Protein backbone atom coordinates (compact mmCIF):
# COMPACT_ATOMS: atom_id res chain seq x y z
CA UNK A 1 0.00 0.00 0.00
CA UNK A 2 2.85 2.33 0.90
CA UNK A 3 4.39 1.92 -2.53
CA UNK A 4 1.16 2.89 -4.19
CA UNK A 5 0.94 5.88 -1.91
CA UNK A 6 4.40 7.03 -2.86
CA UNK A 7 3.58 6.65 -6.54
CA UNK A 8 0.34 8.57 -6.04
CA UNK A 9 2.20 11.32 -4.21
CA UNK A 10 4.70 11.73 -7.01
CA UNK A 11 1.94 11.79 -9.60
CA UNK A 12 -0.04 14.30 -7.55
CA UNK A 13 3.08 16.44 -7.17
CA UNK A 14 3.52 16.57 -10.87
CA UNK A 15 -0.13 17.14 -11.67
CA UNK A 16 -0.38 20.00 -9.23
CA UNK A 17 2.84 21.61 -10.35
CA UNK A 18 1.81 21.26 -13.97
CA UNK A 19 -1.57 22.76 -13.20
CA UNK A 20 0.13 25.60 -11.35
CA UNK A 21 2.36 26.26 -14.33
CA UNK A 22 -0.63 26.34 -16.68
CA UNK A 23 -2.87 28.43 -14.48
CA UNK A 24 -0.46 30.93 -13.03
CA UNK A 25 2.07 31.41 -15.78
CA UNK A 26 0.25 32.57 -18.91
CA UNK A 27 -0.47 36.14 -17.71
CA UNK A 28 3.13 37.19 -17.41
CA UNK A 29 4.96 34.93 -19.77
CA UNK A 30 2.98 36.09 -22.74
CA UNK A 31 4.69 39.45 -22.42
CA UNK A 32 7.91 37.76 -23.35
CA UNK A 33 7.06 35.23 -25.99
CA UNK A 34 3.40 35.59 -26.60
CA UNK A 35 3.51 36.79 -30.16
CA UNK A 36 5.79 34.02 -31.30
CA UNK A 37 3.69 31.38 -29.66
CA UNK A 38 0.44 32.57 -31.08
CA UNK A 39 2.19 32.63 -34.43
CA UNK A 40 3.30 29.05 -34.10
CA UNK A 41 -0.15 28.04 -32.92
CA UNK A 42 -1.82 29.67 -35.82
CA UNK A 43 0.31 28.43 -38.66
CA UNK A 44 1.76 24.96 -38.54
CA UNK A 45 3.21 22.71 -35.89
CA UNK A 46 6.81 23.60 -36.71
CA UNK A 47 7.81 26.30 -34.27
CA UNK A 48 11.50 26.16 -35.04
CA UNK A 49 11.17 27.27 -38.62
CA UNK A 50 8.77 30.03 -37.74
CA UNK A 51 11.00 31.00 -34.89
CA UNK A 52 14.07 31.34 -37.00
CA UNK A 53 12.36 33.50 -39.57
CA UNK A 54 11.00 35.88 -36.96
CA UNK A 55 13.23 36.01 -33.88
CA UNK A 56 11.48 37.63 -30.91
CA UNK A 57 12.83 40.61 -29.02
CA UNK A 58 15.21 39.72 -26.23
CA UNK A 59 13.88 39.42 -22.72
CA UNK A 60 11.94 42.32 -21.36
CA UNK A 61 12.05 41.96 -17.59
CA UNK A 62 8.60 43.25 -16.87
CA UNK A 63 7.51 43.45 -13.26
CA UNK A 64 4.51 41.22 -14.02
CA UNK A 65 6.62 38.36 -15.29
CA UNK A 66 8.87 38.20 -12.29
CA UNK A 67 5.89 38.39 -9.99
CA UNK A 68 4.25 35.39 -11.62
CA UNK A 69 7.55 33.57 -11.63
CA UNK A 70 7.92 34.14 -7.90
CA UNK A 71 4.38 32.93 -7.41
CA UNK A 72 5.00 29.74 -9.42
CA UNK A 73 8.24 29.12 -7.57
CA UNK A 74 6.39 29.49 -4.29
CA UNK A 75 3.66 27.05 -5.30
CA UNK A 76 6.12 24.44 -6.52
CA UNK A 77 8.25 24.84 -3.41
CA UNK A 78 5.23 24.35 -1.17
CA UNK A 79 4.29 21.20 -3.06
CA UNK A 80 7.84 19.93 -2.77
CA UNK A 81 7.84 20.65 0.96
CA UNK A 82 4.72 18.57 1.39
CA UNK A 83 6.25 15.70 -0.52
CA UNK A 84 9.51 16.05 1.37
CA UNK A 85 7.80 15.95 4.77
CA UNK A 86 5.93 12.83 3.73
CA UNK A 87 9.11 11.16 2.50
CA UNK A 88 11.08 12.20 5.56
CA UNK A 89 8.50 10.80 7.97
CA UNK A 90 8.30 7.59 5.98
CA UNK A 91 12.08 7.29 6.10
CA UNK A 92 12.12 7.73 9.86
CA UNK A 93 9.36 5.18 10.36
CA UNK A 94 11.15 2.63 8.20
CA UNK A 95 14.42 3.16 10.07
CA UNK A 96 12.66 2.71 13.39
CA UNK A 97 10.99 -0.51 12.26
CA UNK A 98 14.28 -1.83 10.91
CA UNK A 99 15.96 -1.21 14.24
CA UNK A 100 13.13 -2.89 16.14
CA UNK A 101 13.26 -5.97 13.98
CA UNK A 102 17.01 -6.39 14.31
CA UNK A 103 16.70 -5.97 18.06
CA UNK A 104 14.01 -8.66 18.24
CA UNK A 105 16.31 -11.06 16.52
Amino acid sequence: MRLIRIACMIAAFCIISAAAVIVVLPDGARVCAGNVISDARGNDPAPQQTGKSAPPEKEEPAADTSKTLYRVTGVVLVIWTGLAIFLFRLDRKVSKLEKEITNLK
Partner: protein
Amino acid sequence: MKHVINIAMKSVYVLMPVTIVMAFLWAPPAELLGDYSRIIYFHVPLAWVSVLAFVVSGILSVIFLLDKKNRFSGLDGKSFNSAAIGLAFTVCTVMTGSIWAKLSWGSFWNWDPRETSIVFILLIYIAYFCLQAALAGKSSRGKIGSSYLIVAMATLPFFVFLIPRIVWSLHPETIINVNRTIYMDDQMWITLLTALISFSVLYVYLFNLMNRIMVLKHRIGEHPHAAD
Protein backbone atom coordinates in the same frame (compact mmCIF):
# COMPACT_ATOMS: atom_id res chain seq x y z
CA MET B 1 30.68 4.17 3.43
CA LYS B 2 27.07 3.40 4.17
CA HIS B 3 26.84 6.65 6.09
CA VAL B 4 28.18 8.65 3.16
CA ILE B 5 25.69 7.09 0.77
CA ASN B 6 22.91 7.80 3.21
CA ILE B 7 23.87 11.47 3.44
CA ALA B 8 24.24 11.66 -0.33
CA MET B 9 20.72 10.35 -0.72
CA LYS B 10 19.35 12.68 1.91
CA SER B 11 20.85 15.60 -0.04
CA VAL B 12 17.77 15.42 -2.23
CA TYR B 13 16.00 17.49 0.41
CA VAL B 14 18.36 20.36 -0.34
CA LEU B 15 18.96 19.73 -4.02
CA MET B 16 15.32 19.77 -5.04
CA PRO B 17 14.45 23.27 -3.73
CA VAL B 18 17.72 24.55 -5.21
CA THR B 19 16.71 23.10 -8.56
CA ILE B 20 13.26 24.62 -8.37
CA VAL B 21 14.60 28.05 -7.50
CA MET B 22 17.27 27.84 -10.18
CA ALA B 23 14.81 26.67 -12.81
CA PHE B 24 12.29 29.40 -12.16
CA LEU B 25 14.35 32.35 -11.02
CA TRP B 26 18.02 31.98 -11.91
CA ALA B 27 18.04 30.56 -15.43
CA PRO B 28 17.24 33.05 -18.18
CA PRO B 29 14.17 32.39 -20.32
CA ALA B 30 14.88 30.77 -23.64
CA GLU B 31 14.97 32.88 -26.76
CA LEU B 32 12.07 31.31 -28.49
CA LEU B 33 9.61 30.05 -25.94
CA GLY B 34 10.23 32.49 -23.13
CA ASP B 35 9.28 31.46 -19.65
CA TYR B 36 7.39 28.44 -20.89
CA SER B 37 10.71 26.83 -21.65
CA ARG B 38 11.40 26.49 -17.94
CA ILE B 39 9.43 23.26 -18.05
CA ILE B 40 12.44 21.74 -19.79
CA TYR B 41 14.24 21.61 -16.43
CA PHE B 42 11.57 19.15 -15.27
CA HIS B 43 10.68 17.40 -18.49
CA VAL B 44 14.16 16.29 -19.51
CA PRO B 45 15.25 15.01 -16.08
CA LEU B 46 11.96 13.14 -15.68
CA ALA B 47 12.45 11.45 -19.04
CA TRP B 48 16.05 10.64 -18.18
CA VAL B 49 15.10 9.16 -14.80
CA SER B 50 12.34 7.03 -16.28
CA VAL B 51 14.70 5.53 -18.85
CA LEU B 52 17.27 5.05 -16.08
CA ALA B 53 14.69 3.30 -13.89
CA PHE B 54 13.62 0.98 -16.70
CA VAL B 55 17.20 0.12 -17.54
CA VAL B 56 17.98 -0.54 -13.87
CA SER B 57 14.97 -2.82 -13.59
CA GLY B 58 16.05 -4.66 -16.73
CA ILE B 59 19.60 -5.12 -15.51
CA LEU B 60 18.40 -6.30 -12.10
CA SER B 61 16.17 -8.82 -13.86
CA VAL B 62 19.11 -10.14 -15.86
CA ILE B 63 21.10 -10.56 -12.67
CA PHE B 64 18.10 -12.20 -11.01
CA LEU B 65 17.79 -14.78 -13.77
CA LEU B 66 21.52 -15.53 -13.89
CA ASP B 67 21.91 -15.67 -10.13
CA LYS B 68 21.29 -19.39 -9.63
CA LYS B 69 22.73 -19.64 -6.15
CA ASN B 70 20.60 -16.86 -4.71
CA ARG B 71 23.52 -14.67 -3.72
CA PHE B 72 21.40 -11.55 -3.91
CA SER B 73 18.00 -11.59 -2.32
CA GLY B 74 14.84 -9.93 -3.51
CA LEU B 75 16.13 -8.86 -6.91
CA ASP B 76 12.78 -9.51 -8.57
CA GLY B 77 11.09 -7.26 -6.03
CA LYS B 78 13.72 -4.59 -6.59
CA SER B 79 13.28 -4.65 -10.32
CA PHE B 80 9.52 -4.42 -9.77
CA ASN B 81 10.07 -1.33 -7.59
CA SER B 82 12.32 0.25 -10.15
CA ALA B 83 9.78 -0.36 -12.90
CA ALA B 84 7.09 1.17 -10.68
CA ILE B 85 9.15 4.32 -10.16
CA GLY B 86 9.92 4.38 -13.87
CA LEU B 87 6.24 4.16 -14.71
CA ALA B 88 5.36 7.03 -12.34
CA PHE B 89 8.14 9.17 -13.81
CA THR B 90 7.07 8.31 -17.34
CA VAL B 91 3.56 9.48 -16.56
CA CYS B 92 5.06 12.73 -15.29
CA THR B 93 7.21 12.99 -18.42
CA VAL B 94 4.16 12.58 -20.61
CA MET B 95 2.30 15.25 -18.66
CA THR B 96 5.08 17.82 -18.68
CA GLY B 97 5.75 16.99 -22.31
CA SER B 98 2.16 17.45 -23.36
CA ILE B 99 1.97 20.78 -21.55
CA TRP B 100 5.04 21.84 -23.46
CA ALA B 101 3.51 20.55 -26.67
CA LYS B 102 0.39 22.59 -25.97
CA LEU B 103 2.48 25.69 -25.48
CA SER B 104 4.78 25.27 -28.44
CA TRP B 105 2.94 23.09 -31.00
CA GLY B 106 -0.55 24.21 -30.15
CA SER B 107 -2.16 20.99 -28.94
CA PHE B 108 -1.67 18.67 -26.03
CA TRP B 109 -1.32 15.62 -28.19
CA ASN B 110 -0.57 15.28 -31.86
CA TRP B 111 1.03 11.83 -32.28
CA ASP B 112 4.50 13.07 -32.85
CA PRO B 113 6.78 10.00 -33.18
CA ARG B 114 8.29 10.72 -29.81
CA GLU B 115 4.88 10.93 -28.19
CA THR B 116 3.92 7.71 -29.93
CA SER B 117 6.94 5.86 -28.69
CA ILE B 118 6.48 7.03 -25.12
CA VAL B 119 2.90 5.76 -25.27
CA PHE B 120 4.24 2.40 -26.40
CA ILE B 121 6.66 2.37 -23.49
CA LEU B 122 3.90 3.32 -21.08
CA LEU B 123 1.64 0.55 -22.38
CA ILE B 124 4.41 -2.03 -22.18
CA TYR B 125 5.08 -1.28 -18.54
CA ILE B 126 1.38 -1.14 -17.69
CA ALA B 127 1.13 -4.59 -19.25
CA TYR B 128 4.00 -5.66 -17.00
CA PHE B 129 1.99 -4.71 -13.94
CA CYS B 130 -1.01 -6.62 -15.33
CA LEU B 131 1.21 -9.66 -15.74
CA GLN B 132 2.51 -9.33 -12.19
CA ALA B 133 -1.06 -9.08 -10.91
CA ALA B 134 -2.04 -12.21 -12.83
CA LEU B 135 0.95 -14.09 -11.41
CA ALA B 136 0.33 -13.09 -7.79
CA GLY B 137 1.09 -15.91 -5.39
CA LYS B 138 2.74 -18.14 -7.98
CA SER B 139 6.30 -19.28 -7.46
CA SER B 140 7.12 -18.49 -11.08
CA ARG B 141 6.22 -14.84 -10.60
CA GLY B 142 9.77 -13.56 -10.31
CA LYS B 143 11.09 -15.41 -13.32
CA ILE B 144 8.28 -14.65 -15.73
CA GLY B 145 8.08 -11.03 -14.62
CA SER B 146 11.83 -10.60 -15.01
CA SER B 147 11.74 -12.16 -18.46
CA TYR B 148 9.05 -9.72 -19.50
CA LEU B 149 11.08 -6.81 -18.11
CA ILE B 150 14.09 -7.92 -20.14
CA VAL B 151 12.00 -8.11 -23.31
CA ALA B 152 10.63 -4.67 -22.47
CA MET B 153 14.11 -3.26 -21.92
CA ALA B 154 15.24 -4.80 -25.19
CA THR B 155 12.54 -2.96 -27.08
CA LEU B 156 13.43 0.38 -25.48
CA PRO B 157 16.21 1.27 -27.97
CA PHE B 158 13.79 0.74 -30.83
CA PHE B 159 11.41 3.24 -29.33
CA VAL B 160 13.97 5.75 -28.12
CA PHE B 161 16.22 5.74 -31.19
CA LEU B 162 14.73 3.97 -34.17
CA ILE B 163 11.13 5.10 -34.46
CA PRO B 164 11.93 8.83 -34.30
CA ARG B 165 14.55 8.19 -36.96
CA ILE B 166 12.18 6.40 -39.32
CA VAL B 167 9.40 8.95 -38.95
CA TRP B 168 10.20 12.63 -39.05
CA SER B 169 9.95 14.25 -35.62
CA LEU B 170 9.26 17.73 -34.32
CA HIS B 171 10.73 17.00 -30.95
CA PRO B 172 13.72 19.28 -30.43
CA GLU B 173 16.47 17.72 -28.38
CA THR B 174 16.94 13.99 -28.58
CA ILE B 175 20.09 12.04 -28.44
CA ILE B 176 20.13 11.43 -32.17
CA ASN B 177 19.34 14.77 -33.69
CA VAL B 178 21.74 16.90 -31.75
CA ASN B 179 21.98 19.36 -34.60
CA ARG B 180 18.45 20.50 -34.06
CA THR B 181 19.06 21.43 -30.43
CA ILE B 182 17.75 24.77 -29.33
CA TYR B 183 20.50 27.13 -28.35
CA MET B 184 21.14 27.08 -24.60
CA ASP B 185 23.61 29.24 -22.72
CA ASP B 186 25.81 28.22 -19.79
CA GLN B 187 23.36 29.18 -17.09
CA MET B 188 20.69 27.03 -18.67
CA TRP B 189 23.04 24.10 -19.06
CA ILE B 190 24.06 24.35 -15.41
CA THR B 191 20.43 24.45 -14.32
CA LEU B 192 19.60 21.47 -16.49
CA LEU B 193 22.54 19.54 -15.06
CA THR B 194 21.53 20.36 -11.50
CA ALA B 195 18.00 19.25 -12.27
CA LEU B 196 19.29 16.00 -13.80
CA ILE B 197 21.40 15.30 -10.73
CA SER B 198 18.71 16.11 -8.24
CA PHE B 199 16.09 14.01 -10.03
CA SER B 200 18.53 11.11 -10.24
CA VAL B 201 19.20 11.42 -6.52
CA LEU B 202 15.45 11.53 -5.94
CA TYR B 203 15.14 8.30 -7.93
CA VAL B 204 17.89 6.60 -5.93
CA TYR B 205 16.34 7.78 -2.68
CA LEU B 206 12.86 6.54 -3.60
CA PHE B 207 14.24 3.27 -4.90
CA ASN B 208 16.16 2.69 -1.69
CA LEU B 209 13.15 3.56 0.43
CA MET B 210 10.87 1.21 -1.47
CA ASN B 211 13.37 -1.62 -1.23
CA ARG B 212 13.70 -1.13 2.49
CA ILE B 213 9.92 -1.21 2.88
CA MET B 214 9.80 -4.38 0.80
CA VAL B 215 12.41 -6.08 2.99
CA LEU B 216 10.52 -5.01 6.10
CA LYS B 217 7.26 -6.43 4.77
CA HIS B 218 8.97 -9.66 3.92
CA ARG B 219 10.44 -9.99 7.38
CA ILE B 220 7.20 -9.13 9.11
CA GLY B 221 5.51 -11.80 7.01
CA GLU B 222 8.10 -14.34 8.11
CA HIS B 223 7.89 -13.59 11.81
CA PRO B 224 4.31 -12.73 12.62
CA HIS B 225 5.21 -11.85 16.21
CA ALA B 226 7.54 -9.09 15.20
CA ALA B 227 4.71 -7.25 13.51
CA ASP B 228 3.74 -5.03 16.40
